[in-house]
Each structure stands twice: as C-alpha cells, then as structure tokens.
C-alpha cells in the first residue's frame, strides 16, 4: 500500500509503544492483536528501528497481513490486518 493509502486507513486499534525498546513494541502488538477481530486493522506506533522489520516477519509467521509502514517524525506507524 502507498503512504497515502495507509494514512487514509480506518484503524480499529492503535497501539502506542513509543516509550518502549525492543521487544516492547512487538509484545504490545501481540497483546493487542487479541483484542481485535479477524479482518480488522491495527496500527503500531514505535520509535524502535528494529520493530519495523520485526512486525512484518511476525505477521508472516502468525498469518496476519502486513500492510505497510509510514515514517513519521521520530517514529514509525506500522499497519497490519488480522
């Protein structure tokens, strides 16, 4: 998805993990994914560079759809569909 498409998404769950270091954002995503239904969209906010690689890999292993990442000032917004 393009940055424009990602930023236009209607997000069902937002997880702000900017205050944590690896593996905090990944664990925050793991906890939050249980709170949404299959097909719903979640965004993970992380200031951790490693997380932008971890989340797509984690999605692949868990069967979620990684939609893309938008780089903001000092953090990333990582989008996925359960």
């Amino acid at each position, binding site marked *: 998805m393009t940055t424009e498409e990602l930023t236009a998404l209607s997000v069902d769950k937002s997880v702000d993990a900017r*205050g*944590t*270091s*690896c*593996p*905090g954002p*990944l*664990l925050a*995503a*793991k*906890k939050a994914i249980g709170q949404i239904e299959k097909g719903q969209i979640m965004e993970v906010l992380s200031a951790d560079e490693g997380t932008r690689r*971890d989340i797509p890999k*984690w999605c692949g*292993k*868990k069967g979620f759809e990684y939609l893309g990442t938008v780089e903001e000032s000092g953090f990333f917004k990582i989008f996925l569909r359960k």
Partner: protein
Amino acid sequence: MTLALFSGSVDKLTAAGVILGGAAAEDMDVEIFVLLQAAFAFKKENAMVNDRVAEITDKKDEFLASLERLNTPHWTQAFKTAKEMTNVKIHICGFAGKVWHGEKLDDFIDLADDICGIGEYMASAEESDINLFI
C-alpha cells in the same frame, strides 16, 4: 526453545529477557534451565539487588543508566511478561541451587517452577529447534 542459562549477570540476563520476549511474541514453548551462576541471580535475596555485569565491566554504570533511559524492564519483569504470554517453564538445577545454598524451590524467586537434574535439560534440548547457552 531451550535455554541453558548459566550467567548470573544482568547484562546477559537482560539479553535472555529480550530473546524470551521474541519467543513470547511467537507463542513459542520455552524451557529454561538455570545453571550455576544464574542460580545465584535467581535467589530471592539477590534477584533485585544483583547488578553485576559480565562484559565491558568498565562501562557498567553507563550500561545500567542506558537500560533505565530506554525504559528496559528489569530482567525479572521481562521473564515474568514472557511467562504470562507463552508457555515458559523455569527449572533450577539442583546442583546449582546447592552451590548457592538454595535447597528448596522457596529459596528462589517465584518465576522458578521446579528444581531438576541435567537429564531434563538433555531431553528438552534434544526436542528443541533452538537451543541456546547464555
């Protein structure tokens, strides 16, 4: 995953906690065997006050300050979080316990599940795809 945890130093225990977090995110089953020096760190009276580091010891203060700056959970908290999120069993080696005068499970922090012998480690390592020594 099987983890042979030998180190009793916070730098290596913190690394183990990060790896455990990764395992927890993937719902991986983890068996941890607490060996020799790690048993020291797992004793109730030592867990929270032990601040020894194994590597780059001349920069210990900088390392510990950075952990705090980065909101890194104490290794005991990282282990606890992993236990809450996936199947993690922590076994204290009976010999290691005795080295540090810990004869009973109650001598160790609540994270510990039981006291065992090396045979259980061998069985677990044989069955695991990932086997680490830290």
